[in-house]
């Protein structure tokens, strides 16, 4: 990491071919967090982008080694804070896999509904923030109007708006709110009416289209080689939806389409996320009237001990494939834990796809990668 004098030296120092090094971040409005990009420019053309990470590194993997299997779930809410619910689910699924616990059907269905609500909330925030990066201010307020309904549902059900911590191994922490179904239905109704507004405001906007079409093109081969996942890879035509490949919770009982675009540019990544929100609504609609009665949490011992061995759980977060790898020695704490975060791999492709484009296009490219910095730094 640079100290202050080095930053000044670097920004003023001209390279051998008249190249200029610009430090973007760690405090930059478009990085949405503390990401430091050292951008080498020749005129306005990007020659090289070098990410410097670690400004929000909290050593979550080392921390988890001294936390029990009930405690470590709550740390993961702070990783990808926009899909904290899905992170919690991944950890709970891993513990259930390691201990072979059966989860009640009711918990599975509620988890799936909440996961999809989280995905919509995350994509809503992304649309608002990305449009604002590209100079459109209004979509932010439109997107946050619907997102507010989801955060209110979360607040009623889980007691928190962002770091939900609602999932425990073998089920849910407590039962759903009595008005949960009514509120979710009200949200679905409003979302279906209002989603066309984004389409009118953003998708058909000629300025938005000309700023994103053909910008930051990622080929399918590179997407796979760089380990991209989620909407970034699907916009390049790579089928990688973990909900389809390795279904968990109630995803094997619902019908939905995996959205795949083939253009691979920033506009395709935008379209994938917009269409994914509609698919999430489709999943919720199938489940919301069919929440089974029964227990919301299975019976487990107070102290959880995983079997000896190695366990890996893959889930699909709003940003891509999250992997939790645990090496267990049979004790109450993990021996080694590793989080394969989707943002980390998606960031590594930034240098490759932004290389040769103009610095103004970097906003569109970086925005559509949907980077969440605590997820990358861990």
């Amino acid at each position, binding site marked *: 990491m640079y100290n202050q004098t080095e930053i000044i030296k670097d920004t003023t120092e001209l390279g051998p071919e008249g190249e200029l090094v610009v430090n973007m971040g760690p405090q930059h409005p478009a990085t949405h967090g503390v990401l430091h990009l050292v951008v080498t420019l020749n005129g306005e053309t990007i020659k090289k982008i070098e990410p410097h990470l670690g400004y929000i590194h909290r*050593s979550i*993997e080392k921390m988890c080694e001294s*936390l029990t299997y009930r405690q470590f779930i709550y740390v993961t809410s702070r990783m990808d804070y926009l899909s904290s619910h899905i992170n919690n689910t991944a950890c709970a699924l891993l513990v259930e896999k390691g201990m072979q616990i059966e989860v009640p059907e009711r918990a599975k269905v509620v988890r799936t509904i909440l996961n999809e609500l989280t995905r919509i909330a995350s994509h809503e925030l992304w649309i608002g923030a990305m449009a604002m990066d590209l100079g459109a201010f209004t979509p932010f307020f439109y997107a946050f109007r619907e997102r507010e309904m989801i955060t209110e549902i979360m607040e009623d059900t889980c007691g928190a708006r962002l770091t939900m911590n609602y999932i425990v191994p073998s089920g849910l922490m407590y039962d759903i709110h009595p008005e949960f179904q009514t509120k979710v239905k009200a949200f679905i109704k409003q979302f279906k009416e209002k989603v066309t507004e984004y389409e009118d405001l953003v998708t058909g906007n000629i300025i938005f289209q000309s700023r994103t079409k053909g910008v930051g093109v990622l080929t399918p081969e590179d997407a796979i080689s760089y380990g991209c996942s989620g909407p970034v890879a699907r916009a390049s035509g790579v089928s990688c939806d973990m909900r389809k490949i390795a279904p968990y919770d109630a995803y094997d009982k619902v019908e939905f389409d995996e959205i795949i675009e083939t253009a691979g540019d920033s506009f395709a990544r935008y379209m994938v996320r917009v269409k994914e929100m509609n698919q999430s609504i489709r999943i919720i609609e199938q489940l919301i009237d069919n929440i089974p009665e029964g227990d919301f949490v299975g019976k487990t011992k107070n102290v959880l001990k995983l079997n000896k*061995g190695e366990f890996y759980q893959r889930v699909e977060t709003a940003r891509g494939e999250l*992997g939790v790898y645990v090496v267990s020695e049979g004790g109450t704490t993990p021996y080694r834990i590793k989080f394969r975060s989707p943002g980390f*791999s998606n960031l590594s492709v930034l240098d490759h796809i932004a290389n040769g484009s103009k610095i103004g296009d970097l906003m569109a490219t970086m925005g559509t990668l949907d980077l969440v910095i605590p997820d990358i730094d861990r």
Partner: protein
Amino acid sequence: MTNEEIKAYISSHAPEATFDETGEWLNITVDANSLKSLTTALLGQPMEMNYLFNLTCVDWKNHLTMVYHLSSTIHRHPIVLKVNLDRNTPSIETLCFTWRTAEMLEREVFEMFGVQFLNHPDLRNLILEEETPKGIDASKGYWPLRKDFEDPINMIKL
């Protein structure tokens, strides 16, 4: 592709490979010397293991184990490659020319475990600071995710 076919294919490229089928996926332990040629073979036909979805390291106190989670976006048969390394002078061939995602993942393993990746184009710290923080004796190595690491300033043990 079944596990038996994968085993036969890997044994033909790395005869010393040992297999473990107790977990969810097939675990394969190979020597560090044969890793480079084996991974190149896995990337091509018929295995087409083009997706490296996780790369990490585990400290077993007397040796280090590199863990590679591989899959194919065509055949979807995840496997786990493992390589045991000497804990005092760990070094292994880089895989970033086979899978580009390995470049940043290997930089993380380098700073957290002290594993030297041979022929890596840019082996520097990624997340941690370049210089050792004050108050830490770096003469014996400064690798936070190893089991014997103690940080006197920022206690993370509960």
